[in-house]
């Protein structure tokens, strides 16, 4: 029963990782940028969620739509004013730009909001559903259901709508997309906006579970990188299932080995995947070419 409980907890945790990683992977697959500030976007989303809670008494699930809108806008601003001017520069410039943004946002949060932890109090945050001896946390279950729903909706958006097809086209073959009349710069803005909105949603879902503090993003962005590499860079399918796998690995290693070793385990997986299947477990072996396809 303990093992089953661990598996369920791991899956639920993995749902949260999936939600964060899908946004990171969309930006990576389309804009071809490794957004080191993705964790800080999560941190900002959680602070915004907390702000709505503390000033207006809005439940994080209720204010989620506002948090999503704020992060979408923040993503568009980041793409337009930080990434777009350096798009044609070497990869190292882009890495330093997003790394710099990450450090700047962290320190801005430390300066203005202090290093204190902030959390919300809701009537349901400790509630569980009991099935026999199994206990399923309601906020984590909600986050998991949201992650699945987002994965399905994102898949349908990328697969069925013309804008989604244009996003995939840019990810697969940027030059041909230009030549077919796709406004590639607009697609970059949209992809960065959607990727950031997804992390905004993740922040809103995390708020009833975790407290927020300026360096919170660092932990989650490292896990998101492991998920992205494991699932396949650019693959939405890979990000979703990669998140679930890392959630399971984390939960199992905590029980079977030692809680302190969980990070060592998934970083060992990270290195092994990079060594033996650098394109990721779920990818078609072509890097970002299969965004949203599988």
């Amino acid at each position, binding site marked *: 029963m303990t093992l089953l409980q661990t598996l369920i907890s791991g899956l639920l945790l993995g749902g949260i990782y999936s939600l964060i990683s899908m946004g990171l992977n969309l930006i990576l697959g389309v804009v071809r940028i490794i957004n080191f500030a993705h964790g800080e976007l999560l941190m900002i989303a959680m602070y915004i969620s907390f702000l709505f809670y503390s000033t207006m008494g809005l439940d994080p699930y209720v204010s989620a739509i506002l948090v999503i809108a704020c992060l979408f806008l923040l993503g568009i601003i980041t793409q337009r004013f930080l990434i777009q001017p350096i798009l044609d520069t070497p990869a190292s410039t882009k890495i330093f730009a997003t790394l710099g943004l990450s450090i700047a946002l962290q320190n801005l949060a430390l300066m203005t909001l202090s290093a204190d932890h902030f959390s919300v109090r809701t009537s349901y945050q400790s509630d569980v559903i009991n099935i026999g001896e199994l206990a399923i946390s309601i906020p984590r279950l909600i986050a998991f259901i949201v992650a699945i729903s987002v994965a399905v909706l994102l898949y349908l958006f990328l697969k069925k709508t*013309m804008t989604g*097809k*244009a996003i*995939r*086209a840019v990810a*697969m*073959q940027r*030059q*041909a*997309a*230009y*030549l*077919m*009349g*796709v*406004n*590639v*710069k607009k697609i970059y803005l949209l992809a960065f906006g959607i990727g950031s909105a997804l992390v905004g949603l993740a922040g809103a879902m995390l708020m009833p579970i975790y407290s927020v503090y300026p360096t919170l993003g660092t932990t989650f962005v490292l896990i998101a990188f492991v998920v992205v590499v494991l699932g396949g860079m650019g693959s939405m399918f890979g990000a979703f299932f990669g998140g679930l796998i890392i959630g399971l690995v984390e939960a199992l290693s905590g029980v079977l080995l030692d809680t302190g070793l969980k990070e060592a385990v998934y970083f060992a997986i990270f290195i092994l995947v990079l060594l033996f299947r650098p394109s990721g477990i779920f990818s*078609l072996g*072509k890097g970002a*070419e*299969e965004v949203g*396809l599988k």
Partner: protein
Amino acid sequence: MLKLDNINLFYGEIQALWNLSMEIKEGQIAALLGANAAGKSSTINAISGLEKISGGKITFLGKEIHKMDPHEIVEEGIIQVPEGRKLFNYMSIQENLELGAYSKRAKKDFKKNLRMVFDLFPILEERKNQFAGEMSGGQQQMCAIARGLMSSPKLLIIDELSLGLAPILVQKLLKALVDIKNSGITILLVEQNVKQSLAISDEACVLENGRLALSGKADELLNNPHLKKAYLGM
């Protein structure tokens, strides 16, 4: 229809096009010929807006287009079928064709154009749900041309049509180009295969080291001693 007027193009310090001037007349097939690195791709990339020229101007139907972005140039009616096809490999044929009709001007004629390209290349209709990347080289080239036609182009630029294809397939595709021309679409054919492209072209320009070396009627160029010696080994 399309006029290049003294255009220069640089890649960093390297000059790829030198005061290049040429004109393409409406309703014709024009061939742009030259050896590797002669400047053919640079020329069409400048026309499509992928590369920005640093001198001169490009006009299309009387409108200057050299400062426009690629998607704006597509809206004007110029479409390029790039070298190596550059299909969206993990999308179906149908999706590739839909993306060909991405521009605003193409949307209203989507159904008509889809029927037209399926009639021109029936294999594409049979395999419309197959990934483009899973097709043979010849079928991929058909798909690339069809994708270009989906945009209702006024000028269709085709870069290296024959690259990597069997001669029989090249013949089939060249015949299709004549049909496309007869439907009223002007074609700029960029090729290394001089003899075959001149055979279906009305006019041609030959580039050497980024400069215009020869131009004129295709049948006259076919008998030009310089061209014969340099490109046909005769």
